[in-house]
């Protein structure tokens, strides 16, 4: 009878020791929902939220990368436009021989093609200024600098959206047509006119100086596009910071429920080991208890 009792308590102590040991080696004190249903379900919810927050933060990084690429490309385009502006002013305001005019025209054509190349920049195999027509080259220039715009229309469905927070999406791109225009209006159309005017043997100064305002307009479009990008990046940063804070809070709460408190567990382990030792010793004494046999 007493031996049964001893066995039961010894087994209980052993299982306590084993459980505590498991907690220490795995670092987790909650491994199944059955151990503690209310904490376990909380843990499941935290896991889901943390997963989502991680996805959103990856999306935010991707957005910042692509928008950054757009921003830099726009900067390069702007540099070229500024140079074209200088050349145009030179052609319009000072006396030029037909040779020097030809030199100007040549550089203008060169830079126009460079701008078109930049406007056709690809980021990870997608044309970034083509709206959602990412497989189609947006600005095709022919030999006469006639442009064909094949991107998505400004009033069409050009946004490429990703989710950055619950129910909140943001476009990764900016619309090319809005910045550079299309075949009939916009910077490429202007540059075609400029090129034609510079080629004209009659040296039509008026036509050349008429291009100055549209070129400025073009530069302004680029600047405002860059501003749009900046404000988007700012929003992305702000959302990212909020997401990071929430992640931190959730990770802390998750750790409180799930992680083993090493100091506490080590102390408990020592306690249980002592209890086991004590029960074994007491048991041994009981088993050897004196019976009448000893005294007969």
């Amino acid at each position, binding site marked *: *009878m007493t031996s*049964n*009792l001893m066995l*039961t308590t010894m087994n209980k102590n052993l299982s306590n020791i084993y459980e505590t040991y498991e907690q220490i080696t795995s670092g987790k004190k*909650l*491994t*199944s*929902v*059955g*151990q*503690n*249903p*209310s904490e*376990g*379900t909380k*843990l*499941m*919810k935290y*896991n*889901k939220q943390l*997963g*989502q927050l*991680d*996805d*959103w933060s*990856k*999306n935010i990084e*991707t*957005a910042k990368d692509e928008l950054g690429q757009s921003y830099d490309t726009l900067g390069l385009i702007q540099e070229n436009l500024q140079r074209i502006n200088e050349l145009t002013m030179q052609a319009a305001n000072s006396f030029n021989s037909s040779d020097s005019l030809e030199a100007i025209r040549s550089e203008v054509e060169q830079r126009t093609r460079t701008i078109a190349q930049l406007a056709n920049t690809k980021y*990870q*195999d*997608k044309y970034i200024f*083509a*709206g*959602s*027509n*990412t*497989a*189609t080259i947006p600005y095709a220039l022919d030999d006469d600098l006639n442009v064909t715009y*094949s991107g*998505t*229309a400004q009033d*069409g*469905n050009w*946004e*490429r*959206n*990703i*989710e950055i927070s*619950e*129910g909140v*999406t943001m476009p*990764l*791109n900016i619309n090319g047509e809005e910045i550079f225009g299309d075949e009939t209006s916009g910077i490429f159309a202007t540059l075609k006119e400029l090129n034609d005017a510079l080629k004209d043997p009659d040296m039509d100064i008026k036509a050349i100086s008429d291009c100055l305002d549209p070129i400025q307009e073009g530069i302004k479009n680029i600047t405002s596009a860059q501003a749009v990008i900046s404000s988007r990046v700012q929003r992305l940063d702000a959302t990212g910071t909020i997401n990071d804070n929430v992640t931190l809070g959730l990770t802390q709460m998750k750790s409180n429920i*799930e992680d083993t408190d090493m100091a506490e567990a080590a102390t408990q382990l020592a306690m249980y080991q002592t209890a086991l030792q004590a029960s074994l010793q007491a048991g041994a004494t009981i088993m050897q208890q004196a*019976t*009448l*046999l000893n005294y*007969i």
Partner: protein
Amino acid sequence: MTIGQTMNISRESMNNYQHALAVVSQNISNMNVDGYIKLRADFATNPTYSYGNNVYANIRGLNGAHISQITSYANNAAANSARETNSNAQYYYTLDSLMSRLGEITDELGENGLQASFEEFFSAAQNLSANPTDPSARRIYIESAQSVAMKFNSIASSLDGLQEELVGNWQQGATIENSEIYMSAQDFNQGLERLAELNKQIVIQGADNSTGLINERENLLNSLSAYVDINVEYNKNGTVDVKMGDMKLVSGAQQQYRLNVTTGDAATPAIVQVENMDGTLVLSNANSEVSGGQIGAILDIVNTSDDGFITISGMRSKIDELANTFAQEVNDTQTYTNGTVGAMALGTDPDTGEQILVPSTEPIFNLGNPITADSISVNQNVIDDPNLIATARVDTAVDGWEKNVGNTDNIVATAQLRDKITMSTFGGADNVTFEGFLTYFAGQVGLQQSDISGKFDSANTLNESQQTNLQSITGVNLDEELADMIKYQRGYEASARVFNTANEIYELLVTLGE
């Protein structure tokens, strides 16, 4: 002659003490036998015969003592009480180990849970939204969909496997004969048969003469109580009757009924039946009579009941519901149409060879009515050609929509399914997301698991104290036996001494006057 009488009494007394010592020896040698009920020799005075009415006559009438009976310390009430707690403890023990197996199958906190698969799927959708035309992002998405389907399949097959182990497959009647419940019922029936036999033997030999058989019978009754909760009634002639619920399975030396198990339907896969010894049915559905013990536990975990207890089939139907709703929602988004707006997959322009959008008609998951956890699978066409995944959602009324290959509206909508309220936890209006449903359900299973675990702990403790109690009443106590042994030894010595004294007196008597 009175000396002779003295010698007779002493001789009988020594005989008695020898016999009493034999009883002590029996107890000690059976000390470690399971379920042994200790014996005690009871002494009683022999009736006196008086041939006169004076003191000397009265003394001549004294007759010594004899052993009147061997009393067994059997305590039927304690035994019954211990059997009841044993049934209960066995019931909760079985339930507890089954619940922890169920818990392992739906282990949601590990990396192998369903939630982890959902996480992978929705992450892949988010990744695809950042790069809709990238072939490797598409491949990752399809693979994560396959991984979700495989997880569902594996949970379904584990649940089915567990149920088949316990009660066979209700759709294939013959499989019940390999199941645990059937084997237990057979063991139970064999026990009943042996019990009837023991009863018969005990009656033939006489109850006082059958301590060995009675011990064996007590052990048998204990092991029977582990299968089902039984009521044992002790009869005056030394036999026992065993009742299960209202049915008397064994009456004295005759086994009246036996158990059979047969398959039922999806809601009640296992049905216990009671039949006559010749095989004719008495009760075609005795499930309500069976409670407690191992068989009762198996029935409770397998058969649907009204009290909200989660059963294996209950779990299976919840997982099926989740699989169906999930697959439907993803498919609906994949083939979304609303007026001129539709979901679009990637195709190739036959004239130019460029990548263009084409209407999406292939579902991600194979259709079913409904889709279940074991049937959910990814459409092979989409596995073969991941371009069929509909990432874009455009209005076909707008010119040039075919070129909008970079549009991500449909895949963003798929990713946002994670937060969409699509399921109901109480059978009414929708109130949770997929993962909310899974969490609620895992919580219910976990609650039941910890509830059963607690009940097992207390049932076990109670059982152990009852068994200890029984043991203390019927078990051999070495001190008691040794004390008796000394008593009988002294008694024997004293009787022998008296005999010797009487002998010496007799010798003197014989030589009187020499």
